[in-house]
């Protein structure tokens, strides 16, 4: 049973910089169901973070702005909400965990203070109960001696522990969606798995959904139910995890999967194994953005941008030649 929780439709977030308009997110669409883990993958600069930030309207100022699309959550288009209204969703119904836990916690307040703050802005409870709750949260994310650690400052924790604190903070109000933007990229390889397990575990228990942004395909394969592949600020493919891995329809996804197959399992895949480099997001040419690097390109690809559309039930792709790739698959 798939109950729709969040639907992003044709989201466009642009940066109006002095150098020109950066189309950081341009036409992203996806659906997140209840209890699902959605992976978003793509090279650095492909618009993953901006997509995540757009959901809660946290786009970097002064240049960034949502210029189009809808973000339907619980029957409300939260992209159109004012500051006061969106505040009620942030950290409450939808929470975020960021890439660099060392920089994401305020160095001059204790972690107890910062977790309690999250609780107290959304729940009407007194300081003592908030403190108790903060302690339970720290305990839940596996921080030893939580009572004592409430009084510690962020710099007194290790990187992995700080990310646990961030997770505790994000879970403070039992959100429906946890958005984790490369939550383990800045961490030691040995603790990456622990942090991911922790997140998925907790969210499973509470029946919440996760948007997991990463450029580690191994992570996606292991935890995600669905995947959206992004390239140059645009979605190129969105589908179930199995289809993405075994029946990719977009040449870019195909390249990614090829690169994964070639690697021995020990190596971390950084998605840089396709020749060429991602496009600049200013002044994009009219055609397919993957054209310069695509092995399958045809003349027509450079003329118009292929629409991102559903070509099979639950399988979206943006490529002029998707029909041929579909047929090949059918033929085996």
């Amino acid at each position: 049973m798939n109950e729709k929780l969040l639907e992003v439709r044709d989201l466009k977030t642009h940066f109006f910089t002095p150098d020109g308009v950066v189309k950081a997110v341009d036409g992203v669409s996806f659906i997140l169901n209840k209890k699902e883990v959605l992976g978003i993958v793509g090279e650095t600069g492909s618009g993953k973070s901006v997509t995540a930030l757009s959901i809660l309207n946290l786009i970097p100022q002064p240049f960034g702005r949502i210029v189009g699309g809808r973000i339907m959550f619980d029957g409300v288009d939260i992209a159109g909400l004012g500051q006061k209204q969106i505040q009620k969703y942030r950290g409450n119904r939808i929470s975020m965990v960021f890439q660099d836990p060392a920089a994401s916690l305020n160095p001059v307040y204790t972690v107890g203070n910062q977790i309690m703050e999250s609780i107290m802005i959304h729940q009407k409870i007194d300081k003592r109960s908030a403190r108790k709750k903060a302690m339970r949260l720290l305990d839940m994310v596996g921080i030893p001696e939580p009572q004592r650690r409430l009084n510690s400052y962020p710099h007194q924790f290790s990187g992995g522990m700080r990310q646990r604190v961030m997770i505790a903070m994000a879970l403070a109000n039992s959100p429906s969606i946890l958005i984790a933007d490369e939550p383990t990229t800045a961490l030691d390889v040995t603790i990456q798995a622990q942090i991911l397990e922790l997140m998925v575990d907790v969210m499973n228990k509470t029946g919440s959904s996760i948007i997991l942004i990463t450029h580690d395909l191994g992570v996606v394969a292991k935890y995600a139910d669905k995947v959206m592949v992004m390239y140059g600020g645009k979605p190129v493919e969105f589908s179930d995890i199995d289809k993405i891995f075994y029946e990719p329809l977009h040449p870019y996804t195909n390249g990614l999967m090829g690169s994964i197959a070639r690697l021995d399992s020990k190596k971390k895949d950084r998605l840089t194994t396709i020749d060429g480099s991602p496009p600049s997001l200013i002044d994009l040419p009219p055609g397919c953005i993957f054209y310069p690097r695509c092995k399958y390109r045809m003349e027509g690809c450079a003329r118009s941008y292929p629409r991102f559309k559903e070509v099979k039930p639950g399988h979206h792709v943006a490529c002029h030649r998707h029909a041929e790739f579909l047929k090949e698959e059918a033929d085996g």
Partner: protein
Amino acid sequence: MLYYILRRILQMVPVIIGVTLILFMLIYMIPEDPASLILQKGATEQALANLRAKMGIDRPLHIQYLRYMGNLVRGDLGTSYRYRRPVSSILADYYPNSIRLALAAIIIEIFVGIITGIIAAVKRYSFWDTLVTVSTTLAVCVPVFWLGMIFQNIFGLRLGWLPISGMGDGSLRYYIMPAFTLASVSLAYVARITRSSMLETMSNDYITTAFAKGLSPGMVIGKHALKNAMIPVVTLVGLNLGTLMGGAVLTETVFNWPGVGRAIYHAILERDTPVVIGGTLVLVMIFLILNLIIDIVYAYLDPRIRFDRRESRV
């Protein structure tokens, strides 16, 4: 913390030794005979020699210095050549006025400086931001005494809003102009560093975290940005204390403020060495103590340094 404060107080000793040593050498280089300042013109050579012997200024420099330091340890700052009174009693008349003026200036520097800096940062590129940039540039460029005289001219002479000089009955009106004058340069620096520190702080990831929690912009700025942004500001306020002490001499002279600064100025003109040295020492002491207070505030603001041992800043 107590240990830290004690250590800092002990560290003041070498600073005081250094300051007196430098003052002594500077004054020794002035080829003026204090004895002839004290006695009337036409005093006999014998009388002058007797007086010099009595004052001990016929002895070599290092002996004079050691004697001065010996007295200093006992709290004796010597006797004024001019007034024939103990320097400590002269300074006791003046230094409370100086401290009050300095505190008024520091309060203005901190509050006005920080508030204008925050406004400039939050309303970046607005009219207010430009106004702050222009006025702080002027405040830094213009000499303190000149600014003081402009104030006197406009607010005292022409508009008649404020008393032109002196301390009068010591009411607040008398403080406004000299305190603003004394604070001007430091205030400008504080406003500017607050602005840039605030802007830099606002670009930190933890600010995004604070917004992502659902805090209002006011709370993000007031709680999460402000405390971090204040760290360099407090450092600057500490560094500015020196400027403030130097400015005190000029400001007190321009506004005829009965403080240590003015006393030092007059003492220099009258070659009243003991008052110059004693007064400067008092200013240095005030500077050191304020600095210590700044460092304690600093440790409060930034927990990361509370736990490490920090090198002292003098």
